[in-house]
């Protein structure tokens, strides 16, 4: 019986992240529009966009290989699994033994790898350009991410997200410089990975600036819907990851009653909403960077996370 309940909660978590991903995207867009004193579309607009895309007929380029058709599903699956592993409203889920931070980084890397391959598959100049830019960003963002993972897991003595959340919610964390550095590094990596404003602007189709949009330019209909949903899921994933590691309060533990789970849901919704508002405010207050300055920007994240690992060695042993 307990097994079935645990499975149900895990399934609820999996569906929840997919269900709210477009809503979060719409929420960020609405807040951004409001900050710019525009009315903006309804927060539900991303759902309508996805439905419209799914209803359309898929158009493929003549020289598209099987890879091009498979990639949207592969990318979506990798990111979905990663997002389902991050504890959102409850920790200690059924599959939390596999919710390893290194696994999540690897899954995200897989998704990116296939998307970059698909960008080059058709052989248009835009796709290759987008792929090469994406790889340029990834070559700095991934080491930074791994260093963040190392710092957090050295502190918590584990790489499992549920245990890390429990550790961070506990009393014996103390004031750590490393954690502050890691938080900034993770925020920078999240901005870069989600193609948000200082690195890439998801709202334009201007060839000079785009990275992610250039890679997926040849996709249409249901393939594009999958990719857009995967991009939205990635945003949910990063916000959940930051919430899970740095503000783990309100999360239901394993074996709690239904009230705890409802409380966890409310807490999670509040965390996501606040995260969306902060993201929108940040994006409206900053200008897009030149592409060649992006490695410098991400280099800061790498530097901070390296420094965080180093400082751990002189800090008080836990």
């Amino acid at each position: 019986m307990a097994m079935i309940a645990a499975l149900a909660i895990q399934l609820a978590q999996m569906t929840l992240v997919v269900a709210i991903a477009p809503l979060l995207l719409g929420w960020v867009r609405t807040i951004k529009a409001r900050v710019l004193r525009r009315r903006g579309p309804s927060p539900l607009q991303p759902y309508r966009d996805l439905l419209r895309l799914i209803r359309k007929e898929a158009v493929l380029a003549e020289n598209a290989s099987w890879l091009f058709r498979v990639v949207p599903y592969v990318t979506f699956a990798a990111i979905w699994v990663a997002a389902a592993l991050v504890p959102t409203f409850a920790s200690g889920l059924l599959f939390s033994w596999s919710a390893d931070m290194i696994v999540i980084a690897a899954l995200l890397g897989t998704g990116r790898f296939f998307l970059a391959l698909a960008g080059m598959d058709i052989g248009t100049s835009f796709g290759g350009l987008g792929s090469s830019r994406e790889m340029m960003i990834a070559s700095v963002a991934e080491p930074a991410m791994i260093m963040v993972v190392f710092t957090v897991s050295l502190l918590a003595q584990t790489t499992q997200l549920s245990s890390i959340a429990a550790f961070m919610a506990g009393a014996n964390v103390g004031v750590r410089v490393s954690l502050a550095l890691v938080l900034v590094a993770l925020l920078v990596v999240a901005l870069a990975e989600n193609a948000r404003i200082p690195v890439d602007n998801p709202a334009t189709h201007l060839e000079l600036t785009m990275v992610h949009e250039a890679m997926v330019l040849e996709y249409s209909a249901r393939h594009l819907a999958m990719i857009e949903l995967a991009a939205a899921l990635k945003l949910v994933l990063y916000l959940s990851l930051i919430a899970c590691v740095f503000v783990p309060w309100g999360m239901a533990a394993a074996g709690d009653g239904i009230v705890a789970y409802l409380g966890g849901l409310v807490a999670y919704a509040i965390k996501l909403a606040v995260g969306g508002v902060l993201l929108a405010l940040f994006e409206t207050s900053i200008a897009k960077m030149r592409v060649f300055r992006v490695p410098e920007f991400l280099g800061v994240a790498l530097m901070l996370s390296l420094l965080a690992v180093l400082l751990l060695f002189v800090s008080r042993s836990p």
Partner: protein
Amino acid sequence: MAGLPYDVAHLLAGGLVLLSLMLLYQDRMYALLSVFAAHAVILSLAVAWQAYVQSAPHLYITALIALLFKGMIIPVALHRIVQQLGVGRTIEAVVGVGPTILLGIALIALSIMVMRPVTEQADVLTREDLAFALSVVLLGLLMMVTRRNAVSQVVGFMSLENGLIFAATGAKGMPLVVEISVAFSVLIAFIVIGIFLFRIRERFDTVELVALDQSRGEQP
């Protein structure tokens, strides 16, 4: 074990190292001076915290000296000097920013690796302070090596001296006379360097040190 006193000291010392790295990262003159001022302010906070932890009231005077001279007078004076010299707003570095930062990180790792075994029997606060102070000194040296512009080399020198003061306050029982004399010698050094800057500019119309090499006939 040491609780909050250690945590706050760790926070301030880590902030000092981070600001040293930011000094290396800056490529604009006025921003560099602001970061340097922040460096000195954090230093004075760290020294004041040491005074509180060690209950050594004379360290408060050191903190005050650091705040007044290094946090206010020297940055303002450097600001004036930069304005009067009319040197470029951006700083030319010998090596690019990325490799410099990586080198800096390696130096921090080196100082931690060196200091931990050496200070085996000291208490945990002193060990950490000494490791951080050594890395601040090394980063200051690195900054002096990798910058072409004389003004930013002065900033590197001053940040190096911040590291020295930090090490001195971390070690218990440093007499006040020594600290004051160090602070004043740095002030004198600053005045001398300031005069030299104007002499260099008068002579060569620039404060880039490459010009000195040319005048010695080392470069065509």
